């Protein structure tokens, strides 16, 4: 039970309970405004009936994968989306998806992803939606697989500078996960052996 509504610029005054969490980065106002000024329909908020923000997400639309500066949420990557790519590469990209700690385990991420996929499909006519997730983030990977995403490739040292921590390579490498949309009925945008396809971070930027 939550309200799904558009993300507005003034939500930046309200998102502290989400952004004070360690895995959610607070960017300069330009980050949020640039998404809102291009893909406002891909930016959404989940709000409790009390008016407290529970989570937010955004995507973008484009041709090639833009270089990502976003550090993903460890458990659930943050949802801000964009539309990317041309021809069969035209797709939606989930940039930020995040849920406040007290509202986890309520399927909020699932609902926001649903919206972002729907808009990427129906409005932007993308072929697929993709997102990046830390290879060590099993909770998130399981969730995305449950939503119909599959690993397309492994991007080496995508989360670069952290160095090899407890989790080894899985901490710094990312899976590029994809889900085909209705324009790709033959599922050309995904493949079965994605986990074995390794590329370097330079190849995707």
């Amino acid at each position, binding site marked *: 039970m939550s309200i799904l509504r558009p993300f507005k610029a003034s939500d930046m005054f309200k998102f502290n309970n989400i952004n004070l969490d360690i895995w959610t980065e607070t960017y*300069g106002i*330009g980050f949020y405004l640039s998404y809102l000024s291009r893909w406002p329909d891909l930016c959404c908020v989940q709000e409790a009936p*009390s008016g407290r923000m529970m989570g937010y997400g955004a995507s973008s639309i484009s041709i090639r994968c833009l270089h990502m500066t976003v550090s993903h949420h460890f458990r659930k990557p943050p949802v801000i989306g964009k539309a990317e790519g041309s021809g069969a590469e035209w797709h939606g990209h989930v940039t930020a998806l995040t849920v406040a*700690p007290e509202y986890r385990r309520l399927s909020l991420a699932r609902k926001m992803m649903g919206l972002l996929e729907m808009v990427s499909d129906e*409005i932007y006519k993308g072929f697929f939606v993709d997102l990046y997730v830390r290879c060590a983030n099993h909770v998130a990977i399981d969730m995305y697989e449950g939503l119909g995403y599959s690993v397309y490739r492994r991007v080496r040292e995508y989360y670069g500078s952290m160095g090899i921590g407890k989790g080894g390579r899985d901490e710094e490498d990312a899976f590029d996960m994809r889900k085909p949309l209705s324009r790709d009925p033959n599922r050309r945008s995904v493949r079965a052996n994605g986990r074995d396809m390794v590329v370097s971070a330079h190849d995707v930027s």
Partner: protein
Amino acid sequence: MSAALDRQIRPIYDALDTSSNKSAIVACNKLLKKHPKNELIKALKALALVRSQKVEESLILCDEVLDMKPTNDAVLTAMMHVLRGLGRHKDMVLMFEEAYKQQPNNEELGAQTFFANIRAGQWKSAQQIATRMYKQFQEDRYLYWSVISAVLQANDITTPSSMRTLLYKLAHRLTTSSPTPSYQNTDRFHLHLSILRELELYGDAHKLLDSDVGKAICATSLSCNELRRDIWRLRGLSKEEGELAEARIVDKKDRNWLEFLSVLDATFSYLAPSPDPESSSSAQANCSAHVTRSQELFQRIAEEDGQADRSGLLALLELEKRVRSHGLSTDPERLVKLMQQYFEKIGDKACCFEDLKPYLELEENDLAQWTSYSESVSPSFTTNNELRRLINSHKLLRYNLSSSELTVEAEIARVALYIQQYLEGLKLGAHLPSTELQIADDLALLAGSVLVNLWKLTSEEQYLLNAVTLLEFAITKSKQSFQTRLLLIRIYRLLGAPSLALDHYRAMGIKQVQHDTLSHFLLSRASTFSLASTGDLTFITECLESTQIYLSNSQETADFIVRAFTSEKYSQIPEFIAFEDRLDNSLQRDIVKVEHLRMRIAHEPITSDIIDMELIELKFIFDRTHHDNRDFDIIANYQPRALDSINTQTLLFGRKEGLGWLSTFLKLYIRAFQQGSDLDDTVEEKLLIGDRPKQTVDPENHVPLRERLLQRIDEELTELTPEELLFIDYARALADWLEPYHDYTRPPPSVVLAEAAKQTELKTGYPLKGVDLQALNGLTNGHGKKDEEPPAVTEPPELVVKYFDNVKTRFSGVRGSSSPVQALHVATLAQEALLLFTVETLRFKSASVVKVNKLGALVASFKTIRSNAIAVLREISADLVKQSEAEGTADKRKAFVDGCTIVINTDIDHDFALNTAKKVTDARKKVLEGVGKGVGRVCTAYAH
């Protein structure tokens, strides 16, 4: 431009890009020798100059380029940055208008002229330009630019309300004149609908929305659907909306809570107030029937969804609550039963307490039944879910405790229970990585809240010491718990240990816009803890850092507004503008400004330069319409509803400063600086560069500034502490007393301007722009001779004379109490009073001024006041230093640990408490010593 010159100019751009302004200037100078008339080089030099703070020189070049009426794209772009740097948005508009006039077929110039108007907030001219562009270039987008400009003008605070409808009608007419329908573009459609809603043309809006295209848009666009919902409601179509919502819930499995609210609204839509009793009884019957239907619907959804979604369960609760409020309830026990059902299904989710909060205000039987149910939750837990359930039951129970249940004994028993369960609960999360939150954290927060309440009940500091020890322990177990840190910050401030509050504040990694919403945790009344007088600039730096966001806002946000125009995202434009305004006119911004000023004058020598600069800035601030963006809800509140919230309980000095506090301090300092300054309005007008703030239509602001400064508004004063009130009264009496002497002695504007011009020329080698010295010379001849006699010297008012004696008494009343904050409060305000006295008497330092104006007797009375003030302050200083020596000792640490009996046990051991004790007493020592010595320094600096 030749290719050769182009090549030579490249490096200037590179230098500017890397902020090497000096080398940019050098490169410009070299090129200007060969091309003395080149406007691009001049513009780039002006930019480098303005970025090196050489405003006067930049102004001259800037005006030279403007006089050449540039049309070249590169020059215009460079000049755009120059003018922005100088705050001259209106001149930017003129520059582009001029260029566009010269090249009326240049579409890009037209767009730039439009944007310049948008940046300057000149909606009306923007609208006219867009209309012209539409006629000329026949692009639909320009028509919509003019539409949204009209809407923005209508919404502007400077637009009288009578104009609003007219402007919306204009916007409507323009929209309907479009050759293509608005629904071809979601954002145009959104704009169109919002205009129809404003004009109450619901029928037209309905027709658009009910079309196939309209429906398709609403199905994919949250923002259009939001508008549609609103229009349906305004049209009184809640029944239809309810049916639509039901279909979405059932067929599309939509679980947006807004759909459930629509069903609920529809359910009770029969009960509109009606004078006819008969129709009202049939309305009730209809409503009851609908209630049954909605109940079945929600029940079905709840069963289908199970634990996967809370919507059905919560909708049942909300339905019952509304049924009760309309007196239609048939089963008095149903509400509590539903609450129990909710708890059983959702009790293991962290949000359960917050979900149930709106239904918790129960009475009598309901309350008893609910309480005994909540108490029956098993206190044992072996899984995370059980632990969450237990925590929820504690929160729910605590919320409903009555004052008779909140005795000291009962609260102590609760703390003990929470702490025991907390330590037990930590075991469940022992394996968690350090980046994860402990589920048990909430038990520590609950215990912390009880301890704060015990402190409120008894005024005994030991409870706060127990709280910080427990919470410091909790943070070692759950490093990312920002809630724990927020509570610690508040308590450390209450305890007079500001450096520890600062450590936790910094650990939270506050960034960007969060500075606006959260810096109040650190900077509210921070001058009480500032050691700026000893040269320690920690808090001054925090103030400056927190204000960076306002700079980024003024530099960046307008660019995104322009982008939203380019990409035609009309739904975002008013939002961006409102955001920019809220941040620009943020209350917190200016509260920090005032705190910064109070710290600054304790650090920097008080000179007429500081007085003049601060005066101008404060006057700008005073005319703002402020927005309060501070986030107070962020700190989790687990106090019973019968008590104040944890936020209120932990405010420093128990007072929250807001608009009233800000306005009172602004009035005080503006008045003092006005008296101390030689700048009157005419001088200021000449010396100031850049645009002035927009004036609102608020009639309040048309009262002359002088009168507004004198207003004493009781409502504002409630935000002040008693000590601050005394200070305010002192300041007022001081200003009233000295006003006639200042007014008599202040040199006439012409003299001030001539002096300013002389100084500028000496400093920069250029004359002051816009000031005609020749004309001034004629006026300055009469200098020194006045027609009137100087005002008679009067005795200083009682409030001023007695202020410092009064302070002395008050200080001895609070010194030695367990927390040093009150003593620090009295001391820092007394220091501020001396600084204010210095501001007010600076003018009379000059012997010649005193002699010429025959004010010898006045100056003599200053001496008495000052020497008394300094005597009192020196005593306070010595006392604080003495107190600091007693802090940080083994005795103090032992006393601290001895008081921590509640939290010390096997897990939180004696050594841990001792460590916390050391931190707290050391922090107190530091602030007492620093403020004490600082007061001494200020005394020495202003002894004469």
